């Protein structure tokens, strides 16, 4: 870990107004995430963890406070500039995978690069194949999402998130729809990415998933309640070996 924060927020607040009711989703959150960190953002629903994810992902802007992404003051950006930031600085992984239906895996992975004018068709294909290789799905490049298992779909989504080489991977409950084994498989990929130097922030409410990360940030009622380093992160590869063998149905 070095001293360069990928993410730095100072006193972020976010309030939603629904009719007469004002909901304070964030009450002054200051958070720094450094390069090559692997952070789990935890908390019960309504704690503000989704709000902070949206703000960190430049999908939403804070009501007040500062947010620096890779040294860029996000609040000074227009909607179009935010779109470019999302394209080039951030890779998203969603709970529901959000792959385009009836579209081969390779084209799903190519998608973010279609919105990046600096990448030509040849480079796009090469980088998409490389990303699929790194999640171990090279041979499924031509498969449609409905021909892939949930775990495989999420791995395609991870390939899509890393293909533009972002400074930060933001995962919103990436294992929420998966069983234990495939959850661990996905965490194995994340750990591999992290070992290769990627900075990852993932939202989860499953403590055993958070144990695979290096740092856990707990939210409660719109502010950080606990921020601790994980003493001995679990190794997903090891854990997978401990699981009972896959049930084989004939």
């Amino acid at each position, binding site marked *: 870990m070095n001293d360069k924060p990928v993410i730095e927020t100072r006193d972020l607040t976010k309030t939603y107004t629904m009719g007469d009711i004002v909901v304070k989703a964030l009450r002054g959150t200051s958070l720094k995430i450094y390069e090559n960190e692997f952070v789990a953002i935890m908390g019960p629903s309504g704690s503000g963890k989704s709000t902070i994810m949206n703000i960190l992902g430049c*999908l939403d802007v804070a009501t007040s406070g500062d947010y620096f992404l890779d040294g860029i003051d996000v609040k000074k950006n227009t909607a179009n500039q935010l*779109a470019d930031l999302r394209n080039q600085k951030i890779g998203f992984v969603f709970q529901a995978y959000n792959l385009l239906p009836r579209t081969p895996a390779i084209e799903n992975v190519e998608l973010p690069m279609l919105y990046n004018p600096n990448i030509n068709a040849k480079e796009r294909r090469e980088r998409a194949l490389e990303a699929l290789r790194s999640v171990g799905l090279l041979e499924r490049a031509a498969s449609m999402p409905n021909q892939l298992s949930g775990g495989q779909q999420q791995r395609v989504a991870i390939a899509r998130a890393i293909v533009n080489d972002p400074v930060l991977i933001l995962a919103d409950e990436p294992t929420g729809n998966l069983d234990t084994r495939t959850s661990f498989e996905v965490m194995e990929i994340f750990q591999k990415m992290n070992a290769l130097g990627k900075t990852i922030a993932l939202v989860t409410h499953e403590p055993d998933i958070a144990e695979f990360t290096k740092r856990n940030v707990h939210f409660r009622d719109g502010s950080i309640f606990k921020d601790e380093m994980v003493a001995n992160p679990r190794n997903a590869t090891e854990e997978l070996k401990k699981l009972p063998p896959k049930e084989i149905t004939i």
Partner: protein
Amino acid sequence: MRFSNLIKIAYRSLMKNKLRTILTMIGIIIGVASIVTMMGIGEGSSSSIKSSFSSLGVNAIMIMPGAQNNGGVRSDAGTGQNMTVEDADAIREFCPDISALSPIVRTSAQTVYGSQNWHTSIFGVNTEYFTVRNLKIPKGTCFTMAENKSSAKVCIIGETVVTNLFGAGANALGQTIRINKIPFRVIGILEKKGQNSFGQDQDDVILGPFYTVQKRMLGTTNVGQIIASSTNEKVTNKAVDEITEILMQRHKILDPEDADFTIRTQSEISNIFGSISTVLGVLLTIMAFISLIVGGIGIMNIMLVSITERTREIGLRMAIGAKGKDILLQFLIEAVFLSLIGGFIGLGLGVLFSNLVGLFAGWPIIITTNSVIFAFGSATFIGIIFGYLPARKAAHMRPIEALRYE
């Protein structure tokens, strides 16, 4: 954002849902096909009306003597006997905007060849008549000025006369027929013209030299009417004024109200019929355009449904870096794609339909470049107009909400 990428995105998403794409296109296909067909029918009928008039010569000017007035009893227009060959010569001499002119006398008579006989119209004309009326003599020749002056007994006959006297396809050239017992040598056969727009058979006619018919058959000195041709369509009205002045002077008439002749131009008549068919064409086109608009609304409906259905996709695209305008352009390009491809298919079907209509109904069909451009242009226009609203709706979605949309 590269434009080529946007086209690729739009193309991919249209190809992903072929049924939806085809259903959306059907409206445009029908619209464009009907525009092309309707405009083809309209254009065809108006040009066939125009050509049936221009067979008379577009620049033709007809000068007819007024009604005969016998002790207060007035007869038909054209029965007056006050127009003479000298009038015709004066018009030719003093009216600079006339390019050709022929006096006409007209009668009808029994014609006989061998055991066959036939009653038909006989026109006495000079050689310029063929220019004014745009008549051609593919077989044989025209009579000469000398033959006219010498009242030669020669004639040029129409196909109907050939058929009735000689039998269909028989060679009548050089044969001698008798018209009112006077023998005439057939020196030419008129090009077949068929019926005119009022159903008259234009081939049931015999043309002879003016003086032959006037002197030998009618025995008069007056002229039935004078037909002239202005040098071009624009000076027709000027020519009419000049002729009016010449004739009033020669007939010693001061007030145009008292003129003992009437002048009609071909353009007057053809304009009336031309404008009727133009109105018809415009009506048909409007109807077709309405069906195109209905097609456009179809595109809009399906695009709106498709955008709702694809909310999460839009959210995802925004999350991974699509700007509002990228989304707007994507859906706009999809709509224009649909319209253009639909327009292209519609054009093909339209050409097919028009030819079928032409074949079965026997209507003349003309598909002009203009109607193709119009059909295509309006399809694109419809695509942009009706694609814009759904596309704008998509572009204004908020990514967070779109991503969570169930």
